[in-house]
Structures are given as C-alpha cells and as structure tokens.
C-alpha cells in the first residue's frame, strides 16, 4: 500500500465522498477512499430526504436498484404552540410521476448502495480506517494521509476532504476553523417502526407515497430550531434540531426536547404504537454562505458538510454535498487530463465550477438569513407562533363574540407582543434576507 501512489484519496464515505470517489473512478482515476466506520453509512446520520436530480446527474439509473423508501407527495409546514399547530400543506398528484423528485431514504442502507457503485466504478474502498493526520511536504503541500493502520503515509496527488461536519483533518492542518457554536445545529432523531399499512392509513398514502412534516414554534423553546417527521416505508424518522449556541445558552436537554416534541398533541397520535429502534445525534452546518471556509489548497479540496455547504432555509444538505463532491471530482479529473499538477492555483477550478452551480448561488442568496433567524430566535420561534395559534383559534372558535372584536383582539395581540415598529422591522429584515 505505502509503495503505491493514488491519483486521489477521498476521506469519508458519505454523500460528498461517494460522489467524488465515483466521479473520479469512473473517469479512470486511481482512487482510494478511506472510511472510519465498519461499513459506509455506519457513521452517517441524516433525516433523510434525497433530492433525485443531483443523484441523477451522477448515477442516471439510480432508481433501478437504490434503496429508496417513499417518494414524497405531500409536504406539511407546521407552526406550533404547546397545544396546536397551524399548517400549510402542499400535496400534489403531480409528484406521482415516473421519475419522482424527492424520496425518503435511510442513510445506512443508501450509503452501502452508493459505496457498491463506487467500488464497481473502480475505486478501492477501505473501511474501519480512521485518517489521523494529513501528510504534508516541507512546502506545506498535502502529499497523502496518515491512518490508524500500520504502514506509514499513503501517498496521493490530491486529497479530497469529505470528512463531514466534524472534519478534524482540515482543522488540525489549519485549513479551516472548528465551526462556531452559532454556526451548527445539534439534531437528535429517533427511528419509529410501524407497519407499512398503518403509516399509509395515518397519512393518507398508498403504495410508496410519502409525507413530510416540518415544524417550527414553541417546540424549540425559544431556540432557533426545527422539528421534522419523515415517513419511510416501515418507519418514521422523527427529530428536532436547534443551534448549539442556543442549547448552551438555555441549557435545554436535547433528548427532553425530542420527547416533548414526540408528545406534542399533533405528533403523538401519528407515532402511537411505534417501536423505537435507534436514537441518533448529529451536527448540521447552519452558518450559510458566510461560514464557508477556504475550499482548496495545495494538494487538497474540501467538500460537503466539512465545507459547511448546507442550505438551512430549504433544509438541503445532502444534495449540496453530492454536487460539491461531483464537481470536485470533475475538476480533479480535468486537471489530471491536462497533465497539470494538483496545486492550489489549478485546484481553484473546483471553486470556480462550484460558483457557477446552484450550490454557491443558493447559499449566496440566503447569506443574511442565519444571522436574522439566529439572533431573533425568540420572536420567530416562540412569539410569532403563539400569536399565529391565537389568531387561528380566534378565527375558528365560534362563541358569540362579534367578529370585529375578534379581529381587533388579534391585531392588538400582535402589537402588544412586538410593537408596530417591531412588526414592520421584522417584516422588512425578513424580506431583505430572503431577497
């Protein structure tokens, strides 16, 4: 092994690493992929929703054999207070198309499948191998990696850091900093198993149709956060995530938060009788565009969560990971085909290509959203949801109060909670950040 030199070493077998390894191997590059888990996926946690078009670009016929759970036909956005939810649901028969747009997946199974494709494309995949350090030459160029296996440095022309949100190698090499507590969310999740028919009945689904609920409001207890419920074939993924800085400031317990969400009167009946088979926790990059670190250097590029490529507003991450991995792979293959060295200058091609893709365009669009939502979390995640619930209840409850008085009460509650100026300024700031 140590005598060999690879065109590329990919560290990590998640979405971005698999996309990069597959892209390079299928273009004839000699690729070694290193994964610390027992099998690809054993360390990976996601909700999880798969966006088809980004995978289709990499593996056009993935629907033939990928382990997909359900294709999504309904999306429910909920704003919750302690006893209610106000919802906007979007359900469309258009999503029952021959090549559906979104699927739920179970990552441990999906990642094993993706890894089989990577190996079939010609990459060598080595599991149960933790990369402990990058190997650098005297000039600071990355020339390979050290692992916890015997045998010294493994050499490569370029190292693709697909090491996930906790990417230790990049921070130890000082390519980027440890993410700030205000730039990552801690999400906790449980897998609730139920018979397929029960899930279908509870959500009004047939066959492999799926439904997603995303909920914000008092469930996050004033923290910036989001709860989710995803239907898989025979299970429901239920989770909630909030900013780490807010957890530290409020001293809320993540699993107590998850249990309260589970017991919310709108959620509890959907899970009744389920058997829980796993509890997982994971960090999600939330810093957006402004948190993106240096993406390339002499002999290295960074992709996926390690590069903080996550669109918190649209709750997209794995598709940005896959796309950044693919683009890094294409850039490296292009540089090699020109017989150019893997210098920082040449690898800047990766950043240039990423700039032109939806990845950085989307993140740039929402660059001011994290700061807005994170610094006004109590208004956006507690005050407004409570007001919305009150307004909805005022509207639907019939008790002999004249309607004009009900409307006045709703308006007065809004002004009392946030003041006229506060309401206008929240609306303007939200509009500007969304623009």
């Amino acid at each position, binding site marked *: 092994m140590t005598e060999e030199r690879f065109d590329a070493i990919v560290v990590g077998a998640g979405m971005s690493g698999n996309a990069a390894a597959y892209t390079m191997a299928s273009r004839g590059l000699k690729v070694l992929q290193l994964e610390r888990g027992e099998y690809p996926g054993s360390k990976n*946690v996601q909700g999880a929703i798969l966006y088809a078009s980004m995978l289709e670009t990499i593996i056009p016929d993935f629907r033939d054999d990928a382990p997909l759970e359900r294709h999504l036909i309904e999306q429910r956005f909920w704003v919750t207070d302690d006893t209610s939810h106000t919802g906007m649901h979007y359900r469309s028969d258009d999503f029952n198309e021959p090549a559906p747009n979104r699927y739920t997946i179970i990552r*441990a199974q999906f990642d094993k499948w993706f890894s089989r494709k990577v190996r079939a494309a010609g990459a060598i995949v080595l599991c149960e191998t933790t990369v402990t350090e990058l190997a650098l030459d005297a000039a600071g160029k990355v020339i390979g990696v050290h692992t916890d296996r015997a045998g010294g440095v493994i050499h490569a022309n370029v190292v693709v850091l697909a090491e996930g949100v906790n990417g*230790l190698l990049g921070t130890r090499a000082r390519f980027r900093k440890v993410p700030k507590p205000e730039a990552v969310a801690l999400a906790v999740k449980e897998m609730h198993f139920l018979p397929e028919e029960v899930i279908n009945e509870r959500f009004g689904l047939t066959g492999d149709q799926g439904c997603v609920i995303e909920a914000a409001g008092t469930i996050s*207890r004033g923290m910036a956060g989001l709860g989710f419920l995803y239907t898989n074939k025979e299970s429901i993924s239920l989770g909630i995530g909030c900013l780490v800085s807010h957890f530290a400031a409020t001293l809320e317990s*993540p699993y107590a938060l998850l249990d*309260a969400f589970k*017991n919310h009167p709108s959620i509890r009946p959907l899970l009744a009788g389920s058997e829980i*088979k796993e509890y997982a926790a994971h960090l999600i990059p939330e810093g957006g565009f402004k948190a993106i670190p240096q993406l390339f250097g002499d002999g290295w590029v960074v992709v996926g969560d390690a590069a903080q490529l996550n669109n918190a507003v649209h709750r997209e991450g794995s598709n940005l990971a896959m796309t950044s991995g693919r683009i890094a792979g294409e850039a490296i293959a292009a540089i090699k085909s020109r017989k150019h060295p893997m210098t920082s200058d040449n690898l800047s091609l990766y950043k240039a290509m990423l700039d032109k893709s939806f990845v950085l365009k989307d993140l740039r669009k929402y660059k001011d959203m994290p700061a807005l939502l994170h610094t006004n979390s109590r208004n956006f995640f507690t005050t407004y949801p409570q007001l919305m619930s009150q307004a909805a209840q005022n509207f639907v409850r019939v008790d002999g109060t004249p309607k004009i008085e009900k409307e006045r009460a709703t308006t007065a509650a809004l002004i009392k909670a946030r003041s006229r100026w506060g309401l206008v300024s929240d609306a303007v700031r939200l509009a500007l950040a969304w623009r």
Partner: protein
Amino acid sequence: MTASVVRIEDKLYQNRYLVDAGRPHIKVRQHQSPSPNLLALTVVCPAKCYEVNEDGQVEVTADGCMECGTCRVLCEESGDIDWSYPRGGFGVLFKFG
C-alpha cells in the same frame, strides 16, 4: 418542562456500539472548577456522556457517544476537552443513521 422523566440509558440501549476499551476518544482536561461551556455539556450532550463528580469537576464517559461533535464545538478551542475520532471500526455503528 415535561413531567415525564426521559431515561437516556433507555434510548442509548437501542444503539449499536463497539467500545474501544481503555482508549476513550474524548478526554477532559484537568480542572479545579469547570468553565460554563464544560458544565453545559452535562445537560447539552445528547448522550449524557458528561457528569459532575463529587468534587464538582466534569468527567466524561464516552461509551454511549454518538460522535455528534457538540462538545467539540463548545469546548475544543478553549482546551477544555481533547476530541478525536475513535479508531477505525470502533464507536457508534448506526443501523439506520
């Protein structure tokens, strides 16, 4: 907030781990009294790996760790803790993820 007591042990019991006995991947630096962030870990760690001992110091038992990195984000830069990945193949092994 909720009346029900959540037992984290019951949650972690569902998970699969291969514990690297004698080689913890997280270490807490020696201290007299814990920093606010280190103390916060006793509540914020989703696997409740951190606990205050009789002398008021924070200790870690990483056997149930899900390798999320919350403690790293809060306490690595200050030097309160030292955080590495477990050796290859060890640690949490998600069945579903």
